[in-house]
């Protein structure tokens, strides 16, 4: 039995890092699931390399997965890891800067060859040259330990070496007193039937890692992180793209419509296409178009034909779809446009996250062409935002943009499973009455009738030229153009009537209000909670609706001395708020392809609180 002392911790962040081929995403996911099962709150952040397979050992090929688990409610994957597992020198080099001072570094010495050190740009071996002395370093030959543990498994050398991530996982499981059951079950399910030798080898490696921790006496402490007080219920893990896909399917079910997705692959939106392409048994039709323009046009066609029409992409694709979105605005057809933002401009940083498409989706079309915009706050929230977007699109008959981002799309969190029967249905009937039919008549939400092909007697023509009020005929009449332009704006504004009162997290008035949107939710909420805990007068409003803004927002802003807007862009929401409310707004901007750290925000907020004095 281990002689290590057991210490209780509240929150721990671990980062697994290695070559793309080292299985770090898998390792992190296993640790995450085990911790969630134990009742911790968990948040994760996978960080893929931009290349498919960069050369082994290269800096470009480093793949990382960070997870944060806690006995408290947590909102982010953690700023700086407490533990870094580095499978090679490149992984060490890329990640060591983030490790907490005095943090634990577990390094696979086997990979610290001269060649790998050189590839990673080290002049000497950092494990030996004393450069890591602010950390608790545990150099272990994980590769050799693995080979030894599974010798006789019958696997060839290459396959055997690939088990080393399970050895590392086993070791970290021991360190944090996690049970092996979940991972054992996973290995059994995944490999037993297809490759029993692989199953055995992985199990052996996993257990060897665990036992090594227990017996080797090199770790003086092990840790426990008690379960969190999560809301009771049934949970699953979910990432943003899955949640978005499920939300779209849910909206189709709630509205009784067929789901149609027109899409063209692009990072980080492709997984939504992949997910929905696999749900044909739920009636989802997916269409991988020849490009983004065809994708959105096919979706508009499906909307005309009576489907719940969706198109998904990232920033460059949104740019290409702009003209066609204008057509949907003019023809007043319900359409959902999902923009999973990535680092820009141009091709930019395709695998990294950013929030710099807000102004593009608000204003990036010719002419006066407003559309509602909603943004998801967390991975699981994507589900609800999808339903909300569908509700708006169908209620008011117009295209709606959903903003997500690379961080949400790939980040996972435990998600309390919603009960579909509790979610209000989405009501939008097809128009069938030929008597008095006018394609551009209005209901109370300024929506127009949805008369789909195949309906006898409702034959009518739509198009991109300005439409005459009521008849929908082409009209060059000046007054009609003014009227219809204002009407299209009014439709969007009308959405605000259905937005629930804005939730202010913290005091209803005070020194500083932080207004944020999208995937920064976790970091902002943590920072605000932290400062509230220190008695500071700070509150947080997280906007789901970016257009129109909630009707009560102006009032709320007015109740605080200062307003701070943190964004992963150069101040886009800030600009919208300044223009709308004429209040000085302090921007906190970051464009590094990475989410905010809690500490960065605490620093910025503290400064702002100083000013508010």
């Amino acid at each position, binding site marked *: 039995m281990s002689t290590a002392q057991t210490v209780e911790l509240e929150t721990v962040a671990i980062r697994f890092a290695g070559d793309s081929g080292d299985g770090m995403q898998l390792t992190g996911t296993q640790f995450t699931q085990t911790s969630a099962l134990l009742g911790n709150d968990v948040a994760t952040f996978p960080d893929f390399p931009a290349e498919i397979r960069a050369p082994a050992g290269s800096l470009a090929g480093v793949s990382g997965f960070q997870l944060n688990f806690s006995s408290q409610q947590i909102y982010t994957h953690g700023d700086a890891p407490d533990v870094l597992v580095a499978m090679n020198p490149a992984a060490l080099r890329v990640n060591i800067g983030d490790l907490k001072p005095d943090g634990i570094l577990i390094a696979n010495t086997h990979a610290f060859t001269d060649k790998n050190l050189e590839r990673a740009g080290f002049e000497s071996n950092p494990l030996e040259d004393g450069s890591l002395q602010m950390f608790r370093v545990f150099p272990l030959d994980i590769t050799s330990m693995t080979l030894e543990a599974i010798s006789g498994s019958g696997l060839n050398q290459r396959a055997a070496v690939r088990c080393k991530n399970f050895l590392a996982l086993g070791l970290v499981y021991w360190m944090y007193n996690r049970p092996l059951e979940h991972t054992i079950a996973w290995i059994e399910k995944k490999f037993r039937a297809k490759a029993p030798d692989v199953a055995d080898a992985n199990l052996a490696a996993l257990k060897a890692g665990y036992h090594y921790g227990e017996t080797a006496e090199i770790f003086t402490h092990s840790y426990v992180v008690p379960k969190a007080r999560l809301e009771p219920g049934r949970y699953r893990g979910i990432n943003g793209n899955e949640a978005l896909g499920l939300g779209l399917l849910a909206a189709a079910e709630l509205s009784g419509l067929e789901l*149609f997705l027109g899409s063209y692959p692009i990072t980080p939106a492709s997984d939504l296409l992949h997910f929905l392409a696999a749900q044909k048994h739920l009636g989802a039709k997916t269409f991988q178009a020849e490009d983004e*323009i065809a*994708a959105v046009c096919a979706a508009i066609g499906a909307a005309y*034909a009576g489907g719940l029409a969706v198109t998904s992409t990232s920033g460059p694709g949104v740019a290409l779809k702009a*003209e066609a979105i204008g057509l949907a605005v003019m023809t007043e057809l319900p359409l959902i446009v999902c923009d999973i933002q990535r680092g820009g401009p141009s091709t930019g940083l395709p695998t990294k996250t950013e929030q710099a498409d807000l102004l593009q989706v608000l204003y990036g079309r010719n002419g006066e062409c407003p559309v509602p915009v909603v943004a998801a706050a967390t991975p699981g929230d994507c589900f609800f935002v999808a339903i909300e977007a569908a509700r708006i699109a169908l209620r008011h008959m117009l295209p709606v943009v959903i903003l997500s981002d690379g961080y949400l799309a790939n980040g996972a969190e435990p998600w309390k499973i919603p*009960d579909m029967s509790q979610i209000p249905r989405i009501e939008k009937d097809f128009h069938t009455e030929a008597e008095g039919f006018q394609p551009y008549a209005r209901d109370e939400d300024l929506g127009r009738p949805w008369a789909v*092909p195949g309906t*006898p*007697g409702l034959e009518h023509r739509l198009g991109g030229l300005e439409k005459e009020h009521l008849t929908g005929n082409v009209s060059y009449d000046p007054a009609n153009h003014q009227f219809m332009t204002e009407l299209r704006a009014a439709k969007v504004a009308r959405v605000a009537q259905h937005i629930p009162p804005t939730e202010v997290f913290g005091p209803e008035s005070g020194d500083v209000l932080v207004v944020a949107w999208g995937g920064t939710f976790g970091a902002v909420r943590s920072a605000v909670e932290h400062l509230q805990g220190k008695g500071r007068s700070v509150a947080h409003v997280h906007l789901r609706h970016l257009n129109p803004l909630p009707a009560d927002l102006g009032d709320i802003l007015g109740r605080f001395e200062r307003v701070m807007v943190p964004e992963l862009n150069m101040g886009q929401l800030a600009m919208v708020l300044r223009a709308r409310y004429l209040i000085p707004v302090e921007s906190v901007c970051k464009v590094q392809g990475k989410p905010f750290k809690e500490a960065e925000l605490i620093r910025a907020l503290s400064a702002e609180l100083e000013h508010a004095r």
Partner: protein
Amino acid sequence: MTRYPNLPPTDASALSTKDFKTDQDVRWCPGCGDYSILAQVQRTLPTLGIPKEDFVFISGIGCSSRFPYYMNTYGMHTIHGRAPALASGIQCLRPNLNTWVITGDGDSLSIGTNHLMHALRRNVNLKIILFNNRIYGLTKGQYSPTSEVGKKTKSTPYGSLDHPFNPIAVALGAEASFVARSIDVDARHLQAMIKRAAAHEGTALIEVFQNCNIFNDGAFAFISDRRERPKTSLVLEHGKPMRFGPKKEQGIAVGRDMRPKVVDVAEHGEENLLVHDEGNPTIAYLLSQLAHPDFPTPVGVFRSIDRPVYDRMLQAQVDDARQRKPGRSVQDLIESAHVWDVR
């Protein structure tokens, strides 16, 4: 809420030409070839036995693309070049509809080539009528991708330089399942082609030589002139040797060098002429290369083959998947992941 308004279909047998006319003024230039094409479509649709409400006409932008406004069916005048993509979405969602695409040579072969080609290769059940007037009409007379080399237009005062697209060859490049050509003023032939296209399962493309009397008058005079036509056109008939001329006295033969030549039938022997085969891709391509003045210009069906239809297959995948996992709900899918309980 009904899934679709499943109302009983109207009576298709009672339809006549005037049922397909709208109350909108037709706004093409007097004398434009578009009028005839509109008339032939309006005459043909009632003969197809399809309820009026199932027709959808989708167009891009251009003079020709105003077509849907004049058809009393469902329809949309979309954006430049994208009609085949938008129409594909309609047809994929609801394969029971009867969707037509109306497009011009600029709309479909300049900005929209990509969508046209992909619709053709996928074989979505669309009937595409390409109004080829070899000019940009709506934007007032720039050369188009089908304009002949050296053409002087507003945008090419020194003469155009680009080798033109041959719409038939482009379609064959996409291995289209149905490709035909007709002429605006040849009402009978055009109606026949529209019927053939309507009967085809999959994407059907008809190129129609269309006169723009304002910006490119007489571009097809060599063949639209009734007196010239027997000499200058080769009417394609499946299974028949290729003959033309006022008395069908000339024919097309292919030598061992695989090059076509014009021959005298009497001299050469009818049995030695090339026999048209709508199923043979090589013949179709060879025909696409025949053109006035060296050869008669072929009109009719270049190619017609059976290929699985995209929208039908997509529907079948969905139906099949549903049958395999009947009664599934979104709730089931949500819960099909690894779940755990927090108490």
